[in-house]
């Protein structure tokens, strides 16, 4: 390792659960800034409950000029565990990092243009040996893959895209994005981070296939009519040996389906996961939250706390192994809110696992409405997945 030849780099995380937004912001920012000199970027993950302008004002009171991006969440994550009412501030600093930020508003009117505008930030860190584009988008703005497409068109294949969709604590009304001193909604904010040392990215969902694949014999958009030429709902219930309640009761079905998504075959890597949102008991069809194309193979998937946790380990290991043996400075995690519901009260275990992989290094992240990780191919929007970014 030639670390002695590289410029200094550091990452530190601060967290605060104080009631007052301004105090919480200042408190968390102060802790993060204690990590070192020359801060280059602040990343803010804040609970939905905060008065966002006051929160930002609090952060700005201790760090008036450091570039900042952030968003509201469906729960925040730090080394000490998951939370639902606090703010986590991450600081990156040192001459070994170069950072540029962008924000693109009115996202729903032009998702692709928004992604492309956000990715322009990369121009300012061109020339750094390793680059990554962090994206925090409004998860309620529309088809997030369009944002990824837009960003990819500018970034190209050599720069990985990583991030997640902002949340609003499952109210599903409006999420907020932060850029420097501004609170935005219907926006995407981005930070292009250039570094002298590698980044590592891990992506895992933690669902496993049940039985043999089925042909999607008929579907339309996110509605699945037939699986293996049988009514999709019947095929789904029978194959999974679903409990009786789930066969007649909509709520029981949704609860059951939350841990039994569909997996769509992919050439490489893991399946793309499709969450089954509801059952149409009349027409015997399944309604998913994203498109399920006709004519492909699909697996029924299942997961439990243990498979979700195994995925956590695998994602961390994948991210860390890309660092070429360097110890991580810290880990950023973008974790699907649905995984949180699978874990239930055991959600702390997951964060503890991430923290144990990080060792001494800090962890920060949030529960998302969708995850972004483009490392292979051109698609990079995920459901029900954990994305881990390791910095070194």
């Amino acid at each position, binding site marked *: 390792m030639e670390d002695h030849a590289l410029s200094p780099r550091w990452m530190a995380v601060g967290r605060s659960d104080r009631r007052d937004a301004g105090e919480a912001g200042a408190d968390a920012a102060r802790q993060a800034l204690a990590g070192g000199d020359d801060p280059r970027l602040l990343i803010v993950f804040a609970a939905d409950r905060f008065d966002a302008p006051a929160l930002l004002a609090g952060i700005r009171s201790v760090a008036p000029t450091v570039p900042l991006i952030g968003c509201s969440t469906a729960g925040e994550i730090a080394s000490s565990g998951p939370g639902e009412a606090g703010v986590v501030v991450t600081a990156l600093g040192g001459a070994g990092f170069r950072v540029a930020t962008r924000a693109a508003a009115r996202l729903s009117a032009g998702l692709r243009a928004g992604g492309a505008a956000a990715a322009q930030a990369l121009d300012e860190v061109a020339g750094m040996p390793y680059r990554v584009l962090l994206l925090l988008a409004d998860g309620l703005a529309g088809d997030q893959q369009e944002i990824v497409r837009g960003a990819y068109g500018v970034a190209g*294949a050599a720069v990985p895209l990583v991030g997640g969709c902002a949340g609003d604590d499952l109210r599903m009304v409006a999420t907020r994005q932060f850029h420097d001193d501004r609170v935005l909604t219907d926006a995407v904010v981005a930070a292009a981070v250039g570094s002298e040392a590698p980044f590592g990215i891990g992506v895992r969902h933690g669902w496993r296939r049940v039985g043999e694949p089925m042909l999607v014999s008929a579907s339309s958009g996110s509605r699945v009519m037939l699986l293996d030429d049988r009514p999709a709902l019947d095929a789904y219930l029978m194959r999974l040996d679903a409990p009786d309640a789930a066969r007649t009761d909509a709520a029981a079905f949704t609860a059951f389906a939350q841990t039994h998504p569909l997996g769509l075959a992919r*050439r490489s890597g893991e399946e793309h996961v499709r969450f089954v949102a509801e059952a149409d008991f009349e027409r015997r069809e399944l309604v998913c939250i994203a498109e399920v194309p006709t004519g492909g193979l699909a697996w029924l998937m299942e997961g439990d706390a243990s498979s979700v946790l195994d995925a956590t380990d695998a994602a961390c290991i994948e991210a860390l192994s890309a660092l070429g043996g360097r110890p991580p400075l810290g880990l950023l995690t973008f974790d699907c809110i649905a995984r949180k519901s699978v874990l239930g009260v055991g959600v702390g275990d997951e964060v503890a696992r991430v923290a144990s992989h990080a060792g001494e290094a800090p962890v920060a992240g949030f529960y998302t409405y969708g995850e972004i990780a483009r490392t292979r191919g051109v698609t990079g929007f995920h459901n029900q997945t954990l994305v881990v970014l390791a910095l070194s």
Partner: protein
Amino acid sequence: MNGWSTQQLTEFLAAIGATGSRAAALRLAVERVAEAVEAEVAAVMVDGRVAAQVGFASTGVPGSSLRRIAAGDDPVELPGLGRCRSAAGRLDGEGDAWLVVARAGDDAFNSEDRALLRGMARILTLALRNLRLLTDERRTRRTSQRQARETRQRQRLLEALARVQRLIVDRAPQQQILDRLVSDVGRLVGDPVVGLRLLEPDGTLRVVAAHGIDPSTFRVVVGGTPGSGAGGLALAEDRLVVIEDYPRHPMATPTLVERGLQAAAAAPIRADGRPIGSLVVASTLRGRQYGDTELEALTAFAELASLAITDAERTEHMLHSALHDALTGLPNRSLFSDRLAQRLMPTRRRRSPAAVLFIDIDDLKRVNDTLGHLAGDMALVEVGRRLTSSIRVGDTVARMAGDEFTVLMDGVEDEQDALAAADRLAAVLRRPLQVADRSLTLTASIGVRLAQAGQDRTDDVLRGADLAMYEAKARGGGGVSLFHPELDQRAARRLELESDLRTALDGGQFRVLYQPIVSLCDGSLRGVEALVRWDRGTLGLVSPVEFIPLAEETGLIVELGAWVLGEACRAAAELTPAARGDVALSVNLSARQLLEPGLEATVAAALAASGLAPERLTLEITESVLLSDAATTLERLEALRRLGVRVAIDDFGTGYSSLSYLRRLPLDAVKIDRSFVEQVTLDPRQAALVRGIVELCHALSLDTVAEGVETAEQARALVGLGCDLAQGYHFGRPTGIGEIAARHVLRPNPVKAGRTTGGLIVGPDDHPDPTPLAL
């Protein structure tokens, strides 16, 4: 194979038809093609320039690399991505224009990807032309009738293509798709005769769909061999063929001229890039000339027909291969589990039980090791064939993994009935089979478990049959065992043992005992063999026979073996000053340890930590190790010997003995198995065999150690046979190392006097010339 291609093509068709400008169409095309074939990079290259691309920041587009892809280079190096696999599809009629893709890594584009790329290139070409016409129309604001007609025609063509495409995606019956396709071609091209013909395995062409004329007439009209007529020519030369003055054409067939044929055109239909048929249109109109639009339509529909045909085959193949074992063609584990699950669904109607047979071929490893894996595979295929031909219709045979098969039998009367069926299968499998010019006899161990619909769970039934199979195997193989609940308890104990084993090392529950190895000529102590024991405290001692295989299976043997080695080296080194200076130490090495990359380091560390001289350490390996991976084994043994330690073969004569490896391998000693020693005083032939082994070893300068010597009589016989060293209860049971040394130093007892003391033959401690230590 991702299975979405036809869907993607349809969506592409719809999306590109909706774009309003050339730039938007190109951008959409590169993005969609990259997504469709899971590539990082896609570009449209026109006359060597990049017209649109995705995958590079606009400032860093590597035009020259992309040009090389268009020129057919694969793989290529791309900035930021390194080595990439690539593919290109031509945009026909657009000049030197290509749709190119590149994917990072070594995953090459397969025929399905290439078909998709070609299909998308075709659709893009049509869309671009249509856009051009629309642009012209806008510019002049006064369209000529001909242009308007062409635009309408193209629009109709795109619509027709989309309709057929939708049928493909919806998995409509292939005949319906092809019928629709030829009727659309007829409508768009306007010729009275349209036919689609495919090559049969026997080399003839079969008419699979026709329009305007019934297939039997068509066959007469167009003939049935490749190379003749427009269709035959298109197939034979794999290109678009246009014959506009048919009666004067050299290829013209008189019958057709007689019937008034004036012109014909044909496009090839391809599968996996090879021509497999043709789509033909023919006209009886004098002076018939084919316009660009018509030929485009013909080519586009031929591509679509190719897609429909390969898609049907691919789907069938994809589903089949997901559910079947590639080697034997039998159902695989997931299909078997599913059938079993279906069979076990609760029903109103009372059903007789089903039986699951779990079959494991006993000696397959031996076949693989001695005759090679190809022979092993052939044997498996034959086993599958025999099982399939021995069951009733409706029963299922599956290959679960490696040498494991399962059978699901329906309508079994009772346990006796199931056992009888299993016996029948065992007998069928025992019949000799011919593999690689050798006649082999395989045996199988079969476990049987009955299952009742509505009561038993799939997993339990399979596990039960599996456990019963292990029981059959434990009884020596070749037999049949029925599941009984005790097997579950035994499996549970094993699990418990396994979990305890994992904590036993940290819990300090292992001890190392030492068994003396003595010189047979003078009875002196020459060495000790380290043997591990597991004391589970209040639960008592666990036999090594029980826990060593478990440790092997779980991989714990590596950690345990390293601990034993360290412990034994330390004990042996500490022993030296107080006892005779040169007692050697033998430590067993398992197969698993031998394959462990860190082995040399572990051994070196144990030696360094203890200060034991390397030449005093002998590592013992069993014969079977040598068979599994001879090349690796040889390398590892040589590496170990470079450390200065010695290597011995343990239990010699029990495995698939081959004397040749004694010469090939870097060995220092051979330990003759106790089964020979037992017989040495009883069976003169065994004695002769031992003499043979000893003499061969001596010829190769290897020391010989007899194992399991229990009586003075055996010891004397071994002396007579020339054996050098021995160990066994007669010389001492495994015990603490200090105790052995003390007894040997204190209790001299020459063997030539024939006296024994306390079951121990020992030599004088003033032996004048201790030969170099054997072990």
